[in-house]
């Protein structure tokens, strides 16, 4: 039985190798430039929504905390810039993640130009 299993295993490995090889030779369906426009637009929209939502959440949270402390307006005034900052942080994080991935592809070393 174990012999059969081993043979199956090696058959499977062999098949896996051939499959990987065949896949590697497949022509790429799309060039990167073609694919990147849709991806960039999607990323842009995603980050835009995250920014707006951050401002709203910050403002709402500030107002709510302020409401329970008896000064809703103070909470609102403090919460809005915090939401704005959180939004900027999300945008920054999103953009640096993207550029880091792109740099990695192009073999650009870390750091400034």
């Amino acid at each position, binding site marked *: 039985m174990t012999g059969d299993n081993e043979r199956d295993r090696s058959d*499977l490995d062999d*098949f896996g190798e051939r499959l990987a090889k065949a896949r590697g030779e497949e022509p790429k369906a799309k060039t990167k430039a073609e694919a990147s426009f*849709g991806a960039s637009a*999607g990323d842009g929209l*995603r980050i835009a*929504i*995250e920014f707006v*939502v*951050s401002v*709203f*959440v*910050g403002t709402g*949270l500030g107002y709510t905390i302020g409401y329970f402390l008896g000064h809703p307006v103070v909470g609102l005034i403090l*919460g809005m810039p*915090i*939401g704005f*900052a*959180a*939004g900027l*942080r*999300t945008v920054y994080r999103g953009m640096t993640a993207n550029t880091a991935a792109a740099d990695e592809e192009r073999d650009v070393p870390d750091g400034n130009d």
Partner: protein
Amino acid sequence: MGMTDQVLPALLKPMAADPMEQFEIVEIFPLSFNDGVSLAFTNSSLFMMFIVLSALLFFTLATQRLQLIPTGIQSMGEVAYEFIAKMVHDTMGEEGRQFFPFVFTLFTFVFLANFLGLLPTIPGAPHAIHSFTVTSHIIVTFTLAILSVGLVVGYGVLKHGVGFLKLFAPSGVPLWLLPLITPIEIVSFLSRPVSLAVRLFANMLAGHVVLKVFAGFVGTLLTAGGVLSVLSIVPMLGIVGVFLLEFLVAFLQAFVFAILTCIYLQDALHPSH
């Protein structure tokens, strides 16, 4: 006008001119307690069941009579599996394998909800079985988002205990900046489920409204008569274009939902960075 009314079949008349009508919730089996809290089985519930049964049927068929060299539906199932398995592995590494069932289920549900919501309604069908996109309701997407973020918090606290709070104090930040950075990080964290929910809901809602508005143009132009009737081909072509785009959006939004869940789960695995 009178003539065209008679000539046109009832199907082509601009009947449901309200583009928001398709999102109405209809109670099929009313059920409520305390005179207010409704637990009715609605058309939304019906479509959710339809989605789950479709997924079940698809994967049952895909995993029946498995062959080493897959054919037809088995290979579709394998593509779906490998797609998510690769996404989970790329974002979370080997540790993330435990979250695969969750991410896979989430992706399948959202994708099928978006996709089956694009099915056209059978003309004349009762309102309760109109084609319905469950993800066009923010309460559904918000529940899914809370599920994802809840898992992040639950797993993070279980695994790291108080150490999970490092998420709100990024490493390398000077001590005097922490009182400023921590509230910002907390707001940033709290906005995740909201943005996750709003993104999916807004995309599905907007797409379906656009489709219905264009369809409304076709009906209105057809009944206007003369040259305008001929022009109705333009919004008709527009519908075809938007519909194709909606196919892409249906997949893309499910993909974004799943990959963001993976990225957030990565935070639960490694909160300090």
